[in-house]
């Protein structure tokens, strides 16, 4: 049991599906060889198949405390990183050629059903669901690993894979009900979101939360009554875990989306929300009913000009307040750290990097320099 737990709340009413979080994570953490297909952060359209496709029916987690068998998602399930014929198109000298992914034989990408959603016009609907590793309190991955390669940090509850102990058995992939663990076929180890722990250790929030233009993501300690997480989860009870029935006690929480009213056959608005509440309940549990009522009530209060702590928090006028104790600028954190002896020499001029390139583990450690 960790002494404290860092957690994240994502307000789904504000996510615009821009994937800035995905790119922030991708460029920071998954640029080593074998990580091409890895998106430790994903944003999918709901209702939808998600990433990996159909993850909700791949098993794992716990039922009545008993570990459940699960499937290993394949690279194709996650959505392969496609290769494009840029050379051929731009320099091949063939006028008729057009851009094609994997020679036109590409499968479904990680976000292939973007903006499809559900329902029939005029009641079609969708919302975006960003996902990272849930850094669960009862991590199925940790309990499944025969190598004791997965640990939960005592000081902040971040769940990490020790790549030196991992042997690539992938029981963790099977056991994780959220299917948020990837396998690196080059390095032959499992890899996943690390909740930006080197940043958290320095008082800097995660890259996905800091880069989010929609101010969707709040970060802090779960038990900090002064921080945003405790207020959303415990005080106002508007932030709920995804699929709590998987039994792993996830530490990423979601403020469920409100939606405009459903339109009846005559084109008149009804009392029903466009996004079916039952669907939200299937994702976030029965707490959705009270959470939506609370959100509506507080929104009305705000409209009347009354003070609402919840709305003030959700609006996030003060950006840095979203990150609890993790408000430092990454640059300042880096400045305060002593420069290691072996790096105390003039840096070689940086190469111009104009195309996406995946580095070896050693190159990555040196900041992408050969």
């Amino acid at each position, binding site marked *: 049991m960790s002494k404290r737990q860092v957690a994240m709340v994502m307000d789904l009413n504000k996510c615009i599906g821009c994937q800035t979080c995905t790119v922030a994570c991708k460029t920071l953490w998954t640029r080593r060889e074998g990580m091409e297909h890895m998106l430790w952060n994903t944003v999918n359209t709901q209702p939808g198949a998600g990433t990996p496709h159909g993850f909700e029916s791949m098993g794992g987690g716990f039922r009545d405390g*008993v*570990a*459940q*068998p*699960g499937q*290993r998602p394949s690279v194709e399930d996650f959505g392969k990183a496609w290769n494009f014929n840029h050379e051929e198109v731009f320099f091949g000298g063939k006028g008729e050629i057009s851009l094609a992914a994997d020679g036109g034989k590409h499968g479904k990408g990680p976000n292939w059903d973007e903006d499809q959603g559900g329902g029939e016009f005029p009641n079609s609907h969708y919302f975006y669901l960003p996902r990272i590793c849930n850094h669960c309190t009862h991590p*199925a991955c940790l*309990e*499944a*690993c*025969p*190598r*004791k390669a997965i640990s939960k940090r005592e000081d902040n509850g971040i769940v990490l894979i020790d790549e030196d102990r991992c*042997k690539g*058995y*992938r*029981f963790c992939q*099977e*056991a994780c009900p959220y299917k948020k663990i990837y396998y690196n076929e080059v390095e032959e180890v499992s890899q996943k979101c690390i909740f930006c722990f080197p940043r958290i250790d320095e008082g800097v929030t995660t890259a996905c939360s800091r880069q989010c233009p929609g101010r969707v993501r709040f970060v802090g300690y779960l038990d900090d009554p002064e921080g945003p997480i405790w207020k959303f989860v415990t005080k106002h009870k508007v932030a709920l875990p995804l699929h709590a029935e998987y039994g792993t006690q996830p530490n990423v929480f979601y403020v469920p989306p409100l939606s405009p009213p459903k339109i009846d056959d005559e084109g008149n608005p009804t009392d029903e929300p466009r996004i079916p509440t039952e669907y939200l309940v299937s994702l976030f549990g029965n707490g959705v009913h009270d959470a939506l009522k609370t959100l509506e009530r507080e929104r009305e209060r705000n409209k009347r000009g009354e003070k609402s702590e919840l709305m003030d928090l959700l609006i996030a006028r003060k950006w840095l307040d979203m990150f609890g104790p993790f408000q430092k600028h990454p640059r300042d954190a880096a400045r305060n750290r002593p420069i290691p002896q072996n790096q105390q020499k003039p840096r070689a001029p940086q190469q111009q990097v104009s195309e996406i390139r995946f580095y070896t583990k050693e190159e990555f450690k040196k900041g992408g320099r050969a």
Partner: protein
Amino acid sequence: MRTQRVKNVAPLLDPADPGWRTVPVEQVSMMPTPLAMQPTPYIRNSWEGREYGRVTDLAVASVHDGRQWALRASWRGVSPAGKDFPDALAIALPVRGKPVLALMGAADAPIHFLRWQANKSVVASQIAMGIGSSARGPAITCSAQARAEGDRWQVVIARPLGGAGDLAPLVAGRKTGIGFAVWMGGNDERGGIKAFSIDWAELALDA
């Protein structure tokens, strides 16, 4: 199990070398590692009722020439290509003390493993001091050559004689124990999900 002394091990590194025909072959009985011994509840639950460790017999022969020791193992169980996990064979040798093979050794009684797997040309040297504890073993120049004939693997693993530190001793004229593990990768076998020889067999090296 006898390790016959030959003039030169080198040609016998090829599992198809006719020289192996004159080397006595012994059958080693294998069985699935007991489910109750699997180290995590997830593995026990997810493999309950699933068949694994199907390799029941291993045909083994070994030779040495005073410098090099080579062991040829043959078994039925070639997995189709493209599966997530490779077919594999491990040879276990006790380093010191009296380790229990089924427990993969103990802190004061380590076991040295030489592991071949079908998707790699190198042999891994590993040391184990208990279930789930295997780590990189002593540096040793090993080789492996494998042939798949129909559904049968023929693998020759070789290493120098001698032994010091964590390198299990193999000395001409002496006896030691030997154990085996086989994984059928096509059946998702990896880690403790495997067939193993229940206990040590005696390995006697000709003087």
